[in-house]
């Protein structure tokens, strides 16, 4: 929480350290009212450009919905998934979006516990992104099944068939992990919103907007801001942060076990859990930057989302990029060191394609997985290198471009894992190729549309920054300035 204003018990008064401004908020001199009004102004009637943007995202979403409708009607066969590549774009998207969904909880929970002060300005948006990304991700396991209308069978509930689910299946773990993560993220998000909802409610009442008040009032959960409520609230928030922290690390570990628990060469590795978590944080933080840097420019939030924030996130990106890069290298080393011909074959195949001696006469073909692999290496390991320089980190545009690369790279990393291993499994006679179809690309585009539509709606309907925490971070109003300053 890194407050600069501390209550000094011996002095019996609030002492403000004037030499150290709040790292997240430039203008610690803003008063409560100013913060309140500036934040609420962001929720004003949007400009036409906003609607244009929203329309664009809605169109992408519509494309996805159309593709999905076709697929459900005709059968999963409309996708390019086939034998032996039974998982393709959909599971890639699932893992990718779950990964994106890691940043929010990381920022709001882990950085809350570690008292990283720069989280204040961005955590609300990041959390919203988490919720939306996990919602997006949650769609994919459903729509990739052959009979999505029976997907509820994956939920353990007493039924007349007397049948239960197989709790030894990593997919059931997924069901539990993802639903828990989604529930906790949504609750955490709603929890953080409670005081802000009270602000919005009172604002709506003041302006006489009954409908808005009706919507905001239940979300405020009868919030008054009394000291009793605050004490439960702050303690509850801390517990939530403590609960969500292991979740951040567990969810992607469990998702990684979808792969690691199988016997597929290239999947069956112990490194997967940390590798996936690091990748998730990597991609999640990049997505946060990809989204917030334009938002900062549009809403003029330089006072709140300072360059310091961008720098801090950039450092995290470099750090996780190195972990991910290490994991790539480690995979290859273990693949070689295991001595298993299957492992060696797949790790040769990923970067270079068919080994000459595999084929009848030594033809070498470059396929989708090789493209995916080199894109992944470039975007995830090489592209973030410029961030080592302070000047680049301090340049919002440069960071934005790099994070876009990272997003692309992380998508292809997921594909690299899901797609390439299945192409070259144990039985060479059953090797196959995979190329996506229009339907899959449509649904993928639709998932981005879904995510960004939700986020765009969020930006105008809920305060994209935690007003309460901003107030907490700024200097409190003091009658006797001399006492403090």
């Amino acid at each position, binding site marked *: 929480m890194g407050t600069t204003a*501390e*209550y000094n*018990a011996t002095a019996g*008064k*609030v002492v403000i350290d004037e030499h150290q401004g709040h790292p997240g908020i430039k203008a610690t001199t803003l008063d*409560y*009212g100013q913060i*309140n009004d500036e934040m609420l102004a962001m929720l004003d009637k949007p400009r036409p450009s906003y609607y244009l943007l929203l329309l664009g995202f809605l169109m992408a979403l519509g494309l996805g919905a159309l593709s999905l409708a076709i697929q459900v009607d005709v059968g999963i066969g409309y996708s390019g998934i086939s034998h032996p590549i039974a998982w393709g774009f959909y599971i890639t998207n699932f893992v990718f979006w779950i990964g994106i969904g890691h940043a929010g909880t990381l920022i709001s929970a882990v950085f809350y516990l570690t008292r990283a002060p720069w989280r204040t300005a961005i955590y609300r948006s990041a959390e919203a992104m988490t919720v939306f990304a996990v919602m997006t991700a949650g769609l994919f396991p459903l729509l990739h099944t052959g009979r999505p209308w029976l997907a509820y069978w994956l939920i*353990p509930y007493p039924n007349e068939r*007397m*049948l*239960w*689910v*197989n*709790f*030894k299946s990593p997919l059931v*773990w997924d069901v*539990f*992990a993802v639903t*828990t993560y989604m*529930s*906790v993220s949504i*609750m*955490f998000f*709603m*929890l953080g919103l409670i*005081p802000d909802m*009270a*602000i919005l409610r*009172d*604002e709506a*009442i003041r302006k006489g907007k009954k409908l808005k008040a009706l919507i905001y009032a239940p979300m405020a*959960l*009868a919030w*008054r*801001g*009394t*000291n*009793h*409520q*605050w004490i*439960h*609230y702050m*303690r*509850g928030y801390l*517990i*939530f942060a403590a*609960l969500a922290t*292991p979740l951040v690390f*567990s969810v992607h570990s469990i998702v990684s076990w979808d792969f690691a628990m199988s016997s597929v060469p290239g999947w069956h590795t112990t490194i997967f859990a940390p590798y996936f978590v690091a990748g998730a944080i990597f991609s999640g933080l990049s997505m946060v930057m990809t989204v917030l840097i334009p938002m900062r420019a549009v809403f003029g939030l330089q006072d709140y989302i300072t360059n310091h924030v961008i720098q801090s996130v950039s450092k995290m990106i470099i750090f996780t990029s190195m972990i991910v890069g290490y994991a790539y290298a480690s995979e290859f080393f273990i693949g070689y060191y295991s001595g298993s011909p299957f492992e060696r074959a797949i790790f040769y195949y990923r970067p270079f394609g068919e080994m000459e001696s595999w084929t009848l006469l030594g033809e070498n073909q470059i396929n989708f997985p090789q493209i995916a692999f080199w894109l992944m290496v470039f975007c995830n390991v090489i592209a973030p290198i410029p961030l080592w320089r302070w000047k680049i980190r301090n340049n919002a545009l440069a960071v934005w471009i790099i994070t876009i690369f990272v997003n692309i790279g992380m998508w292809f990393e997921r594909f690299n894992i899901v797609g390439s291993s299945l192409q070259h499994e144990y039985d060479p006679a059953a090797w196959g190729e995979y190329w996506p179809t229009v339907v899959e690309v449509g649904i993928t585009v639709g998932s981005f549309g879904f995510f960004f539509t939700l986020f765009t709606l969020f930006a105008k309907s809920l305060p994209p920054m935690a007003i*309460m*925490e901003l107030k*907490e971070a700024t200097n*409190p*109003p*003091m*009658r*006797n300035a001399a*006492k*403090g300053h």
Partner: protein
Amino acid sequence: MSKFTGVWAIFEYLDETTETIEQVRKEGVQPTVISPCPRHEIDHALGEPTTIVPWIALAFGALGCFIGYSLPAWTASDWVLPVSGKPIVAIPPFTIIGFELTILFAAIHTLAGLALLGIIDSFRFPIPKGAKDYPRFQRDRFGVVVRCEESKLEEFENLMKKNGAEEVHVEK
């Protein structure tokens, strides 16, 4: 809810609020403070109040953990369908379910608990309607609500005024 008898005041400044709180407490009355954001200064002034929310989380976390292990174990043994030569009741995979349900149960009940406690406390420590409807408490004003007997109303009113309250309301 019994009728509210007491004094409530609106403050602009934090230091004046904490000053007031401390003085009210010296009078033997625990005031209810309304603030736009949590401040440690207020907690200190109020004497570090505590909450049972962590205990709720612990209790329900333990329940979730129990269910997380026992549900898979029971369902697996209810109709034995061996898969891949694995034990019917296999502890390692069930640990994941146990973990997830621990978190889920703890989280749900923490949220429910803190919301419920907040509502219960609003009955235990009622605030007058005027204070409830005053919109700037959520924005930029602090409020101090003192519930007292009629005899003490005037005393507290003066105390607040003295400490620089913007407005002081007396409810009978």
